[in-house]
């Protein structure tokens, strides 16, 4: 009469996504729930797959730039920079990129890190249903987007960094307007700190939740804020300096705890760090040309070769492996996307034992960016 209840009936299968407000984009986590604890989870991708790496093999070098920025929608500039840096290196254009061009590239990269961190910090508490802080932070992010629009003409997709430098020089009075925006941001941030880091409920929800063990760092090649939240000062900007980062004065932000709270704290510190770096850039930037003399984009060919370039995105180390074969198109490109590691491998490994309520904050704190996972 009494039979042992089968495993199948003890658990409930739930899909987080693709149509789910708790998911950070168009992806899904198929999870199994027992009581209120997730016992297993599988990440499903493919909802956004466009085949970038394939599409680029059919396009000329300059045609690849509009495509490549769509790889990570909220933070496109890292992708543009990496493709540009790879092509620079392979074509020998790297030596000709003028100093100001490099400074502007660094500026754009930092601005994009700033706006992404502002959004993600709001996401941390937004995933726990606190509406006010994300609203404020996204409004602050819009200020940075305004500057992007002024500089590049686009709010989200900029297509600004190209091989040989950047597309145009800074507009008149750009630094002053940026400074005014920074003052607004700095005025608002203490309020945000107050409702996030001083909130007893957030502390209860975030401290000790979603801890990533230190052994996984090398085993799973983790990077970015996840690693820095363990106290390991690993940052591509310091370890493998690129562009003008060696000339900038900054320390890698670290903390201990490795939980959701620690990662949120890292992002909060990096917002301040980005603003500081941008101020330094404006101070140190020399006058001069912003772009090398470019060859005819329709006939330009790059000699055969291959290279791997990397940069620090807000999510971790982002890398491009670029192969050229002497034609006017890229032979092969592979994107090393941090979200792929964090969103598929790490997330699946962390789901067992997670409370159902903690999945959304966990995903935000791992900063999973679905389009980057699928390319």
């Amino acid at each position: 009469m009494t039979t042992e209840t089968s495993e199948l009936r003890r658990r409930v299968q739930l899909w987080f996504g693709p149509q789910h407000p708790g998911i950070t984009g168009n992806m899904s986590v198929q999870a199994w729930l027992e009581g209120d604890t997730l016992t297993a989870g599988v990440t499903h991708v493919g909802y956004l797959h466009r085949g970038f790496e394939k599409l680029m093999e059919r396009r000329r070098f300059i045609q690849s730039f509009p495509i490549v920025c769509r790889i990570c929608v909220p933070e496109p500039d890292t992708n543009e920079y990496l493709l540009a840096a790879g092509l620079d290196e392979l074509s020998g254009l790297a030596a000709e990129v003028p100093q100001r061009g490099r400074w502007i590239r660094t500026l754009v990269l930092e601005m994009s890190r700033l706006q992404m961190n502002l959004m993600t910090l709001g996401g941390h508490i937004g995933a726990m249903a606190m509406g006010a802080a994300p609203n404020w932070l996204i409004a602050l992010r819009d200020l940075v987007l305004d500057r992007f629009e002024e500089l590049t003409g686009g709010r989200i997709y900029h297509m600004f960094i190209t091989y040989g430098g950047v597309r145009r020089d800074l507009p008149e009075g750009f630094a002053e307007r940026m400074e005014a925006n920074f003052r607004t941001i700095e005025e608002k941030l203490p309020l945000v700190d107050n409702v996030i880091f001083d909130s007893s409920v957030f502390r209860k929800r975030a401290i000790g939740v979603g801890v990533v063990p230190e052994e996984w760092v090398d085993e799973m090649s983790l990077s970015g804020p996840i690693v820095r939240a363990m106290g390991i000062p690993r940052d591509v900007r310091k370890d493998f300096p690129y562009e003008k980062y060696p000339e900038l004065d900054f320390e890698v932000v670290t903390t201990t705890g490795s939980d959701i709270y620690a990662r949120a704290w890292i992002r909060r510190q990096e917002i301040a760090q980005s603003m500081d770096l941008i101020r330094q850039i404006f101070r140190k930037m020399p006058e001069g040309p912003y772009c090398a003399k470019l060859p005819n984009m329709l006939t330009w060919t790059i000699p055969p070769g291959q290279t791997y370039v990397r940069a620090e995105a807000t999510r971790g180390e982002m890398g491009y492996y670029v192969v050229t074969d002497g034609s006017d198109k890229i032979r092969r490109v592979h994107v090393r996307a941090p979200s792929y590691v964090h969103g598929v491998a790490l997330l699946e490994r962390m789901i067992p034992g997670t409370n159902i309520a903690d999945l959304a904050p966990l995903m935000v704190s791992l900063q999973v960016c679905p389009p980057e996972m699928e390319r």
Partner: protein
Amino acid sequence: MPLGVKIAWSLVGVLVAIAYGLVIAGIIRKVMARIQGRIGPPVWQQFIDLGKVIFQRTATRHGWMFYLAPIFRAGGGIGLYLLVPVVIGVPALSNFSFDGDLLLVMYFIFFGSLGMALGAADSGHPHSPIGISRGLSQMTAYELPFALAMVAMAAEVHSFSIHDIIMVQQGGILHWNILTNPLAAIAAFIAFLGMNMYAPFNIVGAPQEIPVGPPTEYNSVFLSLMMSGRAILAVAKIVLYMDLFLGGAHSILEAFVKTFIIYFWSVFVGAVFPRFRTEQAVRFFLGWPTVAGIAGVLLVLIR
């Protein structure tokens, strides 16, 4: 007053209460929006939403129990409202409050919740029972400080009659229970946060976790009844609190002002907090709100 006239007045009262509940919900959306730095919807947005939902061209249902959730939600709200005197001394607005006492009112709150849970569970969606499991867990937890406060109130006047509890508070603000027994009032008002399901206690419908909990499958006319039920339930609960702690109301205007203040207590708390996990919410209510309630009862015993 003849029964027929009384029923007619009550019907008017119910409609007014639904409208008032919708207006309050609209103002809340506006206030929340302003806190978040937005303009927010117009205050009458809830009426438009309600109309839109009724005018939906198609509707879907599951089993026949599916009908029960909106009916019980609205029935619980209306029933609760009918048992609570709104304005003292005006027979037209005191509803059927003489047919029941505080215990009945307390259990009528559960009538709506339990019925809603039963109906929603029939949809077969896993989010419904998960949400209900969370909601019922939280309900038992805030019930303890609430019950302590109720017991303190009732012991003070040696009666469970809401009318008696109002009458003992007459004669100025110093006689209000919120001042004569502040500890019990604290316990009750914290329980009120849990009852109203604003953050940090909005664990039932949590969109980031189980969108949107029990009413996931509800649509069209079902949803409209649920929305009006929620509106009148909110009004009935704040009227109950007004009667218990703020000395009731002598005029409709006074009732509006007092209920408004009571409701906004939970909104302002809700605007600046994220959400608890279920077990954290349960433990919270069993912690110092309960201690406050016990102290409130002790206060009555000492006196």
